[in-house]
């Protein structure tokens, strides 16, 4: 029986939030 691993990235809203957070972290480190 095959099954699909549930990943946080499977949720579109979660994927967007993750990208936003990582972008903020990157910007934060770049600025100072």
């Amino acid at each position, binding site marked *: 029986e095959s099954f699909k691993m549930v990943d*946080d990235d499977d949720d579109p809203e979660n994927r967007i939030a*993750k990208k936003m*957070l*990582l972008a903020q*972290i990157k910007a934060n480190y770049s600025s100072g």
Partner: protein
Amino acid sequence: KEGYVLKAENEKLFGEFVEHCKTHTQDHPEVVAFLQMKYSKASPDYLSSVEFRNALGRCLTRAQANTAKTFVYINELCTVLKQHSAKRRALIQP
């Protein structure tokens, strides 16, 4: 005294939220560190407020009920903390 109790309650709730998030964001530990940094920069008045307790309680309940949206609730809390940062408050003051 009420503010002191609220502050202690909020610290406990925030600790629970952080622990929950650590478990579900192991691929990006920097995200929880970022949330903690936002918390450390937030206005002490806000951190001791009912408003923050409500926001925190809502995020924690939802995050525990829906682990696939952990980043959504971290992002929500980061936004709230950013809006109440001590630096931002100081700039708004006349």
